[in-house]
């Protein structure tokens, strides 16, 4: 088979699946965002309204607050996911008895369906009955009103999502550690290098090519993570003050049935992410993006 033939054989199936299932709905959504599709127009079919929905977005007073909260949410989550995940992967990569057992248990947060885990965390943050406050009480601390204050609800969602997300980074890091040739550590040992030096000059640089795609994608997923905030804060409570961009959009679409508006908001979120990623791409080491 020619080289061209091999390339076609390897690439075309993936391109077809992605083009059909992701690209087409995306284009369709662009069209929706220029209509007034909503509860009152769904029967007779929507009208074309051009960029009217987009103009309304910028009049949205809370837009900047949601954006800021989304950025804080994403930053804190990703840092904790990576630090905890890589740290545990390094620990589990040592040889010790029972490590397969620990490994199996540490993947549990990823193994449970996300919405069940999120609901059970919501129960644990309950003011009166939640185990977190009961535990705090048992060491003599006052109960924390987790779900009824803006800061508390956001913190509760953060804790939940950090718990949910670290096993993924741990698994990726465990795989990445295998791509580091053992000879490099042996050479460092001969030169008398300490463990800190080995971590900084061998492990972290060589882990990068495998970790970076996970980190870039993890950032995007966290930015767009609907489930956790939606379920832990019970749809943005208290009083819609714990929304990030995607939960607000979800509410607009599926609670208020403002489809055209939500479609335009979806496009805006996409553009914000695109610009942020592009800025990072321009600055960062290109290897992070597989170039």
């Amino acid at each position, binding site marked *: 088979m020619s*080289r061209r033939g091999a*390339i076609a054989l390897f*690439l075309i*199936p*993936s391109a077809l*699946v*992605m083009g*059909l*299932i*992701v*690209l*087409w*709905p*995306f284009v*369709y*959504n662009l069209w*929706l965002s220029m209509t007034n599709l909503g509860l009152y127009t769904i029967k007779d079919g929507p009208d074309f309204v051009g960029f009217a929905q987009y103009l309304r977005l910028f009049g949205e007073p809370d837009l900047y607050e949601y954006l800021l909260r989304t950025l804080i949410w994403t930053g804190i989550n990703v840092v904790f996911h990576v630090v905890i995940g890589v740290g545990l992967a390094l620990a589990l*990569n040592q040889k*010790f008895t*029972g490590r397969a057992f620990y*490994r199996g*248990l*540490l*993947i*549990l*947060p*990823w*193994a*449970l*369906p*996300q*919405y*069940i885990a999120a609901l*059970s965390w919501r*129960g*644990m943050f309950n003011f009166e*009955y939640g*185990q977190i406050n*009961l535990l705090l009480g048992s060491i003599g601390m006052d109960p924390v009103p987790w779900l009824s204050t803006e800061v508390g609800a956001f913190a509760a969602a953060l804790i939940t999502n950090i718990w949910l997300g670290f096993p993924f980074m741990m698994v990726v890091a465990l*795989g*990445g550690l*295998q*791509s580091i040739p053992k*000879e*490099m550590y042996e050479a460092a040992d001969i030169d008398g290098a300490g463990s800190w030096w080995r971590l900084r000059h061998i492990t972290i640089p060589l882990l990068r090519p*495998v970790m970076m*795609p996970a980190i870039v*994608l993890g950032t*995007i997923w966290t930015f*767009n993570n609907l489930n956790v905030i939606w379920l832990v804060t019970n749809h943005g409570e208290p009083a819609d003050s714990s929304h990030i961009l*995607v939960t607000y959009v979800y509410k607009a*679409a*599926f609670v208020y049935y403002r489809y055209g508006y939500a479609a335009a908001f*979806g496009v805006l*979120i996409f553009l914000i992410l*695109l610009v942020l*990623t592009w800025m990072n791409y321009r600055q960062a080491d290109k290897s992070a*993006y*597989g*170039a």
Partner: protein
Amino acid sequence: MSPTLKKVLWHAAMIVVVLITMYPVLQIFSISLRPGDQLYSTSLDLIPEGASLESFRTILFEKPFLRWLGNSLLVALSTAILGVTLASTAAYALSRFRLPGQKGILFAILTTQMFPATMLLLPMYLLMRNLGLVNSLVGVILAYTATALPFCIWTMKGYYDTIPRSLEEAAMIDGMTEVGAFWRVTLPLSAPALVITFLFSFLAGWSEFIVARTLIVSRELNTLPLGLESLATTFQTEWANYAAGSLLVAVPVVALFLGLSKFLVEGLTHGGVKG
């Protein structure tokens, strides 16, 4: 520090980490043991008063749990096999050949992840309806594969990039074709990345809820997350059954991970690569 003391401290630290990780899971376990469907209790005891395993019996034998399990296994395994096949080949082409617009392709793959997923639901539903794939597990499998592919392609490409091209060139000098070198040389060396990709696409299909809710109508086609949800939407949420079902959902995943983790952490063929 003596080696024994070091060992003890090491295990103590690991146990603390595992306990913190496990605590919410144990909480779900505790709910599953409670009689009379209480969600809340002011007790910190893990084993509640009047504890029973009744909910596990109910969910396994009185609910169509085994059918949900079968559907979910079919969906998740198909997604995983399809995902690994498509990603391992596409990523190989992206890693080994200089293609026109190479950087553009990789960035475009990334951008497909940036669109809020819920906004794709309505268009995706209409598309599947036109393809006759609404209320069919094939439609769900295709949707999950498409959502899992970008991560899988990126991970595979990142891993291929760490394997020297010279190994394949040597195989081709010995008479293998490009495809043969990929199959016999590169793929076996990429076991850890294949495991990550498999696990990721399996889980994308295993616990997803919203897409399945949108595309599946018949009760016979319910996957596990849909089935569990049906316990919560009857007149009274059956909390104990719900909790027992959630734990049973995690069991196959942990088993799969334990089975695969040998390939993930031992890098068994890596001796052949001298970086």
